[in-house]
């Protein structure tokens, strides 16, 4: 099958006219971002990787999970019933789509988080194999590549003409193609563009990292402070990371009524682990950074048999002090 570039507009129309949400890369303030769009005109297909991951369409940065009102008798609680619309994520990158199994794992682990799962059940993810990349891409180092179909329902490959070869990966993908068959054409004789393959970083061995991290004594290794001392503790890496999923529950209330919100939180914030007593087990920044690294390369793989890092490189790009996670991976790989 082929999706002609000109037909994408039509696809947007078809999806949105039936109440669906169409998410695609667009340009906003000198950046390419995933955003829900109204028309295919907005789509930008010349991009490496959007600034945000598309996790916000499954796990919004802030969402109301309950409303409450207070009266003499006490508190009335109203749970939010979410019925998300059908959502298409178009133009996702293979690294981003690979995060979906990891996210699902954490949101369905000991408790089914319906705010996540209900949305996830309604999404169709259409990824495009990368034909461009930059220095900070490192998917190949963590066992992924632009050819990865992991997490995608439909996988596209760009042709020399700028159209897309369509491959359905899942049943949901197949159903989607059937439902919108008018925009898809039978495949002719086309040549696809070469994919951008990030160079695998030689010095990094993910399995070895896991091994090192699993050793109890290494938790106190002086290496942590050395590698992560420059971290300034902002949440930019966690908020742009496709697999970071921590959230906080906050009440915002007026005099007699209010809402309970679920907001993104970041393990990099010093208040993340602050106890009411004033004690903070992660009292310095490198300890917080250690936690994030441990989470991605040790806790996650141990618990969910899926990795917490997909090699998208966003955390490297947005880091104000350029703390490069691959340099840390390299440093640890060198350790015995």
């Amino acid at each position, binding site marked *: 099958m082929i999706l002609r570039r000109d037909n994408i507009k039509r696809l947007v129309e078809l999806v949105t006219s039936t109440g669906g949400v169409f998410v695609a890369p667009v340009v906003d*303030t000198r950046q390419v971002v995933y955003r829900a769009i109204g028309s295919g005109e907005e789509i930008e297909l010349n991009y490496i990787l959007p600034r945000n991951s598309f996790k916000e369409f499954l796990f919004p940065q802030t969402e109301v999970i309950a409303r409450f009102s207070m009266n003499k008798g006490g508190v009335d609680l109203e749970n939010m019933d979410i019925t998300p619309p059908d959502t298409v994520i178009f133009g996702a990158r293979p690294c981003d789509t690979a995060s979906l199994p990891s996210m699902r794992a954490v949101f369905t682990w000991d408790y089914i988080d319906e705010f996540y799962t209900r949305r996830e059940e309604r999404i169709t993810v259409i990824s495009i194999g990368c034909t461009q990349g930059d220095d900070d891409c490192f998917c190949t180092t963590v066992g992924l590549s632009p050819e990865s179909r992991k997490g995608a329902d439909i996988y596209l490959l760009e042709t020399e003409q700028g159209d897309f070869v369509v491959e359905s990966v899942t049943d949901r993908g197949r159903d989607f193609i059937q439902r919108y068959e008018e925009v898809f054409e039978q495949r002719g004789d086309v040549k696809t563009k070469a994919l951008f393959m990030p160079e695998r970083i030689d010095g990094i061995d993910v399995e070895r990292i896991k091994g090192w991290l699993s050793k109890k004594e290494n938790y106190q290794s002086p290496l942590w402070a050395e590698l992560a001392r420059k971290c300034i503790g902002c949440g*930019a890496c966690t908020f742009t990371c496709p697999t970071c999923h921590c959230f906080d529950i906050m009440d915002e209330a007026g005099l007699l009524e209010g809402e309970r919100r679920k907001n993104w939180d970041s393990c990099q914030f010093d208040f993340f682990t602050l106890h009411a007593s004033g004690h903070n087990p992660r009292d310095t920044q490198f300890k917080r950074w250690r936690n994030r690294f441990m989470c991605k390369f040790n806790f996650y793989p141990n618990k969910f048999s899926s990795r917490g890092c997909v090699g998208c490189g966003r955390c490297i790009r*947005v880091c104000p002090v350029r703390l490069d996670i691959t340099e840390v991976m390299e440093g640890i790989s060198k350790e015995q």
Partner: protein
Amino acid sequence: MERELRDTARRLLEDKTVGVVVGYSWNRKKTRTTPVFVTKPEDAERLIFNPLCVNNLSVYLTRKYPDVRALGRIGIVAKGCDIRNIVVLMAEGQIQREDIYIIGMTCSGVVYRQELWEGELKPEIMPTKCHNCDVRNPHLADTVIGERVSFTPPETPQGVVFDRIREIEGMSPSERWEFWMGHFSRCIKCYACRQVCSLCYCERCITDKNMPQWIETSAHPRGNLAWNLIRAMHLFGRCTFCGECERACPVNIPLNILNQKLAMVAKEAFDYSSGYDPEVHPPLRVFDPEDREDFIK
């Protein structure tokens, strides 16, 4: 210049003048610079200095980094603009002059963002602060490294930020509102602006205070507006326009415009510019009975 820097750093570490030198080094691919903490004399070779050295390293001097302080007296590689922040930190009692050793770097400008670097420093890739810089030769340092730079900033400040300020001032209130709400609505409350700022040294930021929670932490437009207004207000009369907040912002909110607007107000209303004299009080903790009050009816 780098040679001199490395030699100086090595000497300072060898004779134990400092316990650590905070400076810049290359990333692995030598495409970007990144902060480095040099504690061993032999590691002084890692230090570099070039127009990619955008970070304001004074952030590591604050109370938020006890582990950096634990390394001993801090030697800091600082451009004139970074030294302005050090001066504010001194004025606000956050550091004592004798606790730090300032390795002042003469500077001909840096890039606005490292991604823009193509091997040559051109005016169009420099931030507004560099075009108006009056501290290219460090104004407070224990040692100054580099050739003296002769540069006279223009009489009236020039550059994109000032153009934008004028443009926004020319807008109607509702246009200004639309402009800022458009930007603030993108805020993701990652607080990179706060964390990268050496003057945002509060151990507990006002936004982290609950009981009462003055600023809603949700990244919705109302919470974002409150946060951005108070952030700007808390830097009023203190911000040195180092530009780190805007550089760090992952969603490109033009914070420089906001900060510089308030810096202009401080200059015009109190004839005060921050970061030049540690003996002068920041304007909001003092007053002048003759302060203007044409707006008070």
